[in-house]
């Protein structure tokens, strides 16, 4: 709310508006083609559209390889989300609550995978896994996904934990509550939105991730790998588009929920610091 007061109104019309439209179009128009062609009757993505149909969607549940890939993705996604969020909670709590030597460099190192080229990370992970004598499987994919999910988890959790006023827990104790009661009635409700948000974000990242999964999986395909495999067959393209649309919608919904929760958590702790409000 405070930020809006500082923003000035843009002058109406003019080049800036045109630029903004082109910019948004450039970002989202390609994505729009996906749902459009996924409900087209023709098997080749081509204008003009030939007619409306749900048949590509209806065909999805009857593809056993797809179902098993979806299960794999679900398992990997949940495992990666839980692991990266658990590790993220510990790290975020440490960096927001305590001052210790090397806090900043450690923070930077944890966030680094965010900007490392994914293919390099994937190859390095593959080398490490092979050196360790691990056979490639969904488990190794989970490990790889945890690595790339942790920075996202951390970003979400830190913004939820930051400014968590320690005196809230003291106040609870002061009002007669036990340590466990304080955790249940104050700490958990305060950080829960951030934790759920972190779970959703890391699940989504894992669900959509291709390169690391491609390198680290054995024979079990995840959804993106399945899609990659299907692209070889022109006839399967509409089904891939339909599946892609569903993934897109799912990711969008999950990330929106996550962001709403994250903001709610951040707002809570921030307003706590707003003594002069």
């Amino acid at each position: 709310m405070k930020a809006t007061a500082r923003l000035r109104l843009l002058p109406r019309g003019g080049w800036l508006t045109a630029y903004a439209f082109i910019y948004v179009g450039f970002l989202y128009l390609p994505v729009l083609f996906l749902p459009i062609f996924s409900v087209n009757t023709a098997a080749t993505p081509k204008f003009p559209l030939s007619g409306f149909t749900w048949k590509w969607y209806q065909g999805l549940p009857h593809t056993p390889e797809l179902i098993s890939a979806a299960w794999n993705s679900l398992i990997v996604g949940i495992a990666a989300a839980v692991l990266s969020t658990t590790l993220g909670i510990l790290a975020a709590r440490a960096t927001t609550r305590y001052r210790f030597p090397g806090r900043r460099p450690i923070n930077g190192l944890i966030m680094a995978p965010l900007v490392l080229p994914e293919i390099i990370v994937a190859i390095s992970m593959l080398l490490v896994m092979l050196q360790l004598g691990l056979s490639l499987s969904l488990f190794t994919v989970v490990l790889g996904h945890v690595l790339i999910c942790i920075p996202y988890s951390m970003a979400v959790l830190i913004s939820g934990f930051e400014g968590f006023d320690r005196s809230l827990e003291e106040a609870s104790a002061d009002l007669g509550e036990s340590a466990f009661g304080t955790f249940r009635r104050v700490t958990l409700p305060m950080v829960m939105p951030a934790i759920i948000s972190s779970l959703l974000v890391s699940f989504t990242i894992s669900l959509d991730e291709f390169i690391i999964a491609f390198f680290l999986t054995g024979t079990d395909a995840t959804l993106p790998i399945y899609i990659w495999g299907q692209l070889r067959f022109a006839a399967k393209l509409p089904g891939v588009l339909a599946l892609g649309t569903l993934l897109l919608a799912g990711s969008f919904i999950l990330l929106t929920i996550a962001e709403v929760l994250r903001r709610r958590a951040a707002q809570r702790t921030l307003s706590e610091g707003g003594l002069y409000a």
Partner: protein
Amino acid sequence: MLDCLDTDSLSAGRPPSGLTVAKPMIEIRNVTRSYGAFKALDEANLTINEGEFFSLLGPSGCGKTTLLRMIAGFDMPTTGSIFIDGLPMDGIPANRRPTNMVFQSYAIFPHLNVEQNVAYGLKRLRLEPAEERRRVEEALAQVSLTGLGKRKATELSGGQRQRVALARALVLRPKVLLLDEPLSALDKKLREQMQVELRRLQQAVGITFVLVTHDQYEALAMSDRIAVMFGGRIAQVDTPKDIYQRPVNRQVADFLGGMNFVRGRVVEQDHASLTIDTLGFGRVTTERPPAFVGDDDAATLGIRPERLRVLWDDATAPHEVAGTVIERHYFGETTHLVVDVPGLEKPLSVIETNDFGADDIPVGTTVRLAYDPEALVALAD
């Protein structure tokens, strides 16, 4: 916690604390709190009486907050003991002490509304829902927040947050209410208003209040008694008036507002009084402060700036000192003059109210200042 609650204390409206027979509520016995080699609190001894509004006053790092947190149970003494209502508090955690605290940040639970914040501690008592509601309403009324129960914690102003913090603590009817710099986050006007309200509230509920503050005016305005602390030690415990008018040493005198220090030579002394010769104020006989060493004949006297009055025209006073105005500062209701007096090491500062035209005295004028010799106090170093 239930057994220590006095159910009538909130509504009964006890007589003002000054009239009750002093009964110790908090006893601090030889309490030291060390962090490694650093002593945050050093051999503190203090008794705070039931129904008293007591302030711990001092600059930051003097140990006042450490002491408060040890009374609350968030911190434990390294050596020594704290007694509350006659019971030793050794090893007893915050949640089992008959004290409640108003935090500096207020620590309002942001995920709960005003009502839920106030009812937080009551939940554990498992009261009848109607009784719980009644107590919450009563507490909200005490802090003038009636009708705001459903308001979200995030929608409150600074002053309202503070009231919620007060209500949340008072609703449990503690034996002692601890206040950690509760007014420091408020603007000046609201702060002054809350000082009056806090004092009024304390008189109404009759609970022992222990306030931590670094603001001497706050302590003077609200307290029955004040402990002034420096560097982990308690320097003086007295009523506001005595602390201000009879500070035991230079440090206390200096911390509690402006003070003119005047050097002198002891010419006569016994166990109760000192006679001191000064260059500006002549020979002065004063009470001997307990901490006065007197191993040489040097001594320091103090006089507050407002105890010096400008004499107009032909007016005379039994005790006068003359000097030249070298600076004049206008403060609206008062004017501060800096007057250079021959013989004094430092010029005197003088505070005059502006009803007689002190704001018009030109710099360079020679003025005569009247004082009461009683206002000159000997100060230990």
